[in-house]
């Protein structure tokens, strides 16, 4: 599967968001707080109504390190392609 071996797309991380990691870096059971949405306006406008807005708590339900992953955001389960998950920058929450 060609797409799975792609590196995470490079995203510009502003200094205020040091320590922010892509959602795809979280493993199952880990929480993250959305810091920033990278990616174009088209992708953003599909993501924000689903609840991916800065400050939202995301729980990763499934992530096998390749292929799509599943996250819980605002009590809904959302499946995301790896490319899409790379564009959601989160701050990892402990516990």
């Amino acid at each position: 599967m060609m797409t799975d071996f792609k590196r995470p797309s490079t995203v510009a991380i502003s200094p205020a968001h040091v320590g922010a990691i892509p959602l795809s870096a979280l493993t199952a059971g880990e929480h993250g707080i959305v810091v920033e949405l990278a990616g174009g306006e088209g992708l953003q406008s599909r993501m924000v109504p689903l609840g991916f807005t800065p400050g939202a708590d995301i729980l990763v339900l499934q992530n096998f390190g390749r292929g799509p992953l599943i996250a819980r955001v605002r009590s809904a389960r959302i499946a995301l392609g790896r490319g899409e998950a790379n564009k959601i920058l989160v701050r990892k929450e402990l516990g």
Partner: protein
Amino acid sequence: MKHPHIVQHPPPVEWIAKERVILVALAGQPNVGKSTLFNLFTGLNQHVGNWPGKTVERKEGTFTFNGTTYRLVDLPGTYSLTANSAEEVIAREFIIREHPDVVIVLVDAAILERSLYLVAELISLPVPLVVGLNMIDVARQEGVEIEPEVLEAALGVPVVPMVATKNIGVQDMLRVVDQVAQERLHCTPKPPQIRADHQQVLDQIVALIDGHVPAPYPNEWIALKLLEGDREITRAMQQGMPEERWEAVYDVLRAHDDALVAVASGRYEWIGRMVRAAVTHPRAGQISMTERLDRWATHPFWGLLILAGILGLAFWLTYTVGSPLQDLLDTHVVGGLAAWARTALAGGPPWLVGLVADGVIGGVGAMLTFLPILVIFFAVMAVLEDVGYMARAAYVMDGFMHLMGLHGKSFLPLFLGFGCNVPAVLGARVIDSPRARLLTILLAPLIPCTARLSIIAFLAPAFFGAAAPFVSWGMVILALSVLAISGILINRIAFRGQRAAFIMELPLYHLPNGRTIGMLVWQRSISFVKKAGTLILVVSVVVWVFSTLPGGSVEDSYLATVGRWLEPLGQLMGLDWRLMVALLASFIAKENAIATLGVIFGTENGTGLAETLAATFPPSTALAFLAVQMLFIPCAATVAAIRQETNSWRWTFFSLAFLFVVSLLAGMAVYHLAQLGGLG
């Protein structure tokens, strides 16, 4: 139900005498139970069509309550009102232009926060809103308790708690809708306020666009959509405004390109306040049934195994129930009808007998015999969709479908193609991205359907003896390889490798609702029979006329003339005019290829036909013929479905031309390779 903040007036006298139809729109995000509620309200008084110029399903129905007639329009399920797809545009255009008397917006109590997002958008529009708080039972199971009265007070619009699948709260909803429509219930909606710094920007844009906003769109709403970067509205305003005025608007927008996220965050802050007030018991940390099931259903290995099991079951159903029914219909209903027509018209001119018995009844009959398989596939799709499994199947197949520029949602429709290409094309509706939907429709005819497989099953043993299973398997592999390569190529060339983002909600699992499934199967079958029926009828009559005129026999008909005319082309693949005619005849129904060869070789009903053919043609020709017919232009029913679903003759003809060329190329390649390989 009490409405503490809502003033209830006695009905004004003039309402009683007046008779009018009240227009109600049903809005909601996907998977909130809209169809169930729609079916409960309208029963069989509903009509399914398409939104004008779009391939999005439009459901409309009527019902009466308290002596008033209501017209209910089901809006497409959307997460927001920003133009990401045709659905959002349809929903908001309907609300703004048609100005329904009441808009019911259904929310999922178990996903309250997320489903209130659409409410946050709708409440800012100048239409009376009623919120249906659906699935309170599921929310309770997840440990979430919501106080509807508090939510109602906070929103300033009526909130009706309900469980649509159990018919709970539906009467309350009707009562409230009735009160709002009769203007006996006055509400003061409390829409979300935009953040102060953005309000300034918004005011600036409102002032700039003032006088250029087409009626009936509210200025504030247009300004907000511009801030959110809505493509549709941006384009419309750019075209409708003097250039220097637009430049000014554009400068403001460019200076605030983070507004999309800011506006959405503002809505979620507003929602947060609603939820904090109304939810007494927030969701506990327990693992829900859905999450436990998903550990298996979405697992990269077990998930595929479960999917394979479910699909196996679907095929088992088709073959044990569908095929016998198909045969019964074919011999008794279609055959009986044709025989009856022959007797009834015995005194008439022979052409009339042939036209009715072979042309009309033969053609329509072919479609009729499709129905059992179609109904079974529709039912399987509807059940999988209703219980929430469809999204899981899409999820586990996503990686594989990537290769063709598709994503997981295209898998099930394509897989259905093995039964019959028609439900595969119709099933592509579940795909939300228009491009992926189109690509799926274009690829569906490359899946070898049962009819095509039966041709192989008929011819392969006579030609290849013990190697027949190997040949059949090779043909299937050939078709699937062509499908994969075509997918990659069409995606690269026509769509420039773009691929819609894969973002998909995995809804909660729930028990299937018989009524919802029944209605879905019924509507899809009826709509297919109605729309495709006419086209199939016309095509069958035309092909029949060509295969009969001028002499009355296939051998010297116009069809044979065309076949002979095509013979030079056929020669490239080792096919003579008889095999070309068989290919052409397979356009009505794939099985016709064999029937036509039977007529030409004078062996009715295929007795000894396979042996005759094996004695007439070399194996290389047989291989080429099988390869071509696997990939050839689809049957008339599939073409009708492609036309219906793409809503475009251009894409329909593209599909035909594409398959024609591909099948001929494959035929030539197979023929020459077979000859090189020493197969004569």
